[in-house]
């Protein structure tokens, strides 16, 4: 029996071994190596200098890092406060009673998230071009009548610099198009799980649509919403491809499109300072860890309250 028991204990580890080997080689080792690298300056393995915490100290005084962090936070706020409400609104419309062809609408709204980021970035970069872009041309055409009526030049300027002065707005719009449909699915699933009898009871008690939304729908979808918010925050903090491609490999005028991961890329792979790039990477990890712990604690608090 004892032999059997030890074999039983070993079996899961045997099954886990391939994963653990891959995890240790491609995740754990690079993580430890990156932690060591954050305290070094290197030019290949042959030229390494231990610089202690000076990479982190330099980061705290690096104006570009703070610009990148500020931009990333702005994008994250855009994702959370613009994208998620839009996703929820779309989900609520889809879950409305009596709507026919829900599957078709769901497919249409979800479709943009199936498109590659590169494609979306190129598409939006063209749309946001100054004089020839669809957005400025459309807005100019739509507002031209204002000029005719007022006799003043009130038409939208064709020279409006979406990718110059308003980079973050352009990125938030592009991300909204790409990811709103994806997040909608989470909210749809959560809305479908709300018990019909609770909604009916609230209606019988005289609750209107607004009261039902805040007192029935919101509490019911809160765990899913918290999860979607956390995913959104983590995804937003990892923003790279969209601005990199929309801004043609740069960070836009005055670094308005510079994000933390873009800065990490610039420092690590354009300037070649891998130690400093690792310090940026670890700082980003700590920020995201903070958000995750906060989310877990909030979720646990709610569970206890229930």
């Amino acid at each position, binding site marked *: 029996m004892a032999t*059997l028991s030890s074999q039983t204990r070993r*079996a899961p580890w045997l099954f886990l071994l391939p994963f653990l080997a891959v995890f240790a080689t491609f995740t754990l080792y690079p993580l430890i190596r990156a932690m060591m690298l954050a305290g070094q300056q290197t030019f290949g393995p042959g030229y390494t200098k231990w*610089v202690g915490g000076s990479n982190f100290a330099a980061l705290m005084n690096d104006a570009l890092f703070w610009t990148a962090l500020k931009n990333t936070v702005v994008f994250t706020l855009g994702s959370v406060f613009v994208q998620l409400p839009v996703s929820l609104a779309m989900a609520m419309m889809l879950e409305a009673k009596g709507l026919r062809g829900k599957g078709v609408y769901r497919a249409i709204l979800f479709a943009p998230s199936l498109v590659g980021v590169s494609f979306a970035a190129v598409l939006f970069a063209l749309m946001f071009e100054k004089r020839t872009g669809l957005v400025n041309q459309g807005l100019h055409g739509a507002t031209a009548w204002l000029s005719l009526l007022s006799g003043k030049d009130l038409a939208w300027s064709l020279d409006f610099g979406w990718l110059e002065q308003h980079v973050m707005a352009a990125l938030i719009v592009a991300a909204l198009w790409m990811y709103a449909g994806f997040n909608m699915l989470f909210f749809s699933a959560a809305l479908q799980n709300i018990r019909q009898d609770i909604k009916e009871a609230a209606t019988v008690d005289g609750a209107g649509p607004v009261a039902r939304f805040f007192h029935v729908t919101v509490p019911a979808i809160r765990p899913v919403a918290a999860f979607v918010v956390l995913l959104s925050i983590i995804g937003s903090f990892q923003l790279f491809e969209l601005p990199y491609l929309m801004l043609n490999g740069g960070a836009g005028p005055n670094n308005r499109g510079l994000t933390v991961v873009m800065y990490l890329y610039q420092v690590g792979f354009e*300037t*070649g300072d891998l130690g400093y790039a690792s310090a940026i990477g670890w700082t980003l990890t700590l920020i995201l860890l903070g958000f995750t712990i906060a989310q877990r604690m909030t979720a646990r608090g709610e569970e206890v309250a229930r």
Partner: protein
Amino acid sequence: MRRSQSTADHEHGREGLPVLSFGGWLIVAIALVSTVLFAASPVPKQEGRSMWTFARMHWLMYQPMVEKWNAEQTTRVNMNLLSLPALERRMLGAFLSETPSADVIEVERKVASRAFTGPLDAVGFVDLTDRLTSEGLLDGINAPSFSPWTSRGRVFGVPHDVHPVMLSYRADLVEAAGIDVSQIKTWDDFARVMKPLMADNDGDGKPDRYLLNMWDTHDEHLEVLLYQAGGGFFDESGHMVIDSPTNAHVLATVVSWCVGKDRIAADAPDFSASGNKLKADGYVVCTLMPDWMGDIWKHEIPQLTGKVKLMPLPAWGAGVAAPERRTSVWGGTMIGIPRTAVKSPQDFEDLWKFVKHLYLNDELARDLYRVGGIVTPVKAHWKDPIFDEPSAYFAGQAPGRMYINLAPQVPMRSSSPYNNFARYRVQDALVKITEEAREQERAKPGSLNFDALLKRASEELRLAAKKVQVQIDRNVFLKEESR
């Protein structure tokens, strides 16, 4: 008890094998066999030497020359075309880890400078200085073309090109307006003489076209103008010159071109469909044009055939370090031999012979110009009559001869690995001053003042210089070497 026995049987295996079922053992066996087969399968061995290049045009052009080499020589060369980012990753990865890459690498300026970040003896390319000197190539090739591949006085590559810059203009529009471009000697002349072209024909209160394709966001255009004026980011000895009076003068002038009552510039981005449309529509009259750009225009804006002409860049005049210079430089490529490819003196001799066969070849010089409009840096080939042939695209002008005449004036550049970082910071300064100027013009039209712009440019450039210096000071390897 029965259930427990059954589980034990299952775990022990009916065939007496412990823990795994037959299926489990089958998976393990397949994994082991495939691993052994994979590990034992022979790696295809490449015969001969390998060369990497990043430009399809170069790859096509080199084919006959490489075939000729392979037919005549015992050591074959296999040429591989890689995208520039792929080449950059592989080359730097190999250099940093001191593992083999290709035997010969052709690489663009911004990527090559990345190899110069560490100590001199860690540069991944073979130092060619002594060989270039002993064979007289340092004198035989246009001197400024070596500067992007020279680090701390040592040369690590043979230049592929010169890339002088001229100003292209819409000859159809300029000549229809009766403007004589020979009157234009300086940028001030340019604004004055060309001004009639900025008419408002549709009556919307705005000019229908602008004189120059230049904008505060065009970092490469700014770099071209800085070099022309004798400014830039680092001098030939590697000292930072970001906050020089010349740079401040150029920045202030560019702002005055983009904003205010004297605005002459507009944004028609290069390498984009929208920019090409604006150029074809005549929204901008003139564009900075290095020799390689002509070929791109021929393919992307063919409707301008016979409507475009070239002239030397207008000089900056007083206020800058190079007041008379009528050209600049944009881009550049070199060929180098990675150190890991040289295991014996004979290896170097073979590869050096191939490099010379390719880059000093008179046939290549002709092809380079015929196919890409690019002027060779090898001075002996400049006499070739191909450079005097008129171009239909440039309304019968001979661009080759015009570019060659300017080649000796091409400014020197630095190979600093901090060039890109410095360029971004100088552009940040330009964008900031331009936006302040726009605000000022909105609040008080016509109030822009050149002296005030110059003062702001100096202040912002000092801040930019500080940011770059912080980055450089963090490089312990360069610091140790300078001690």
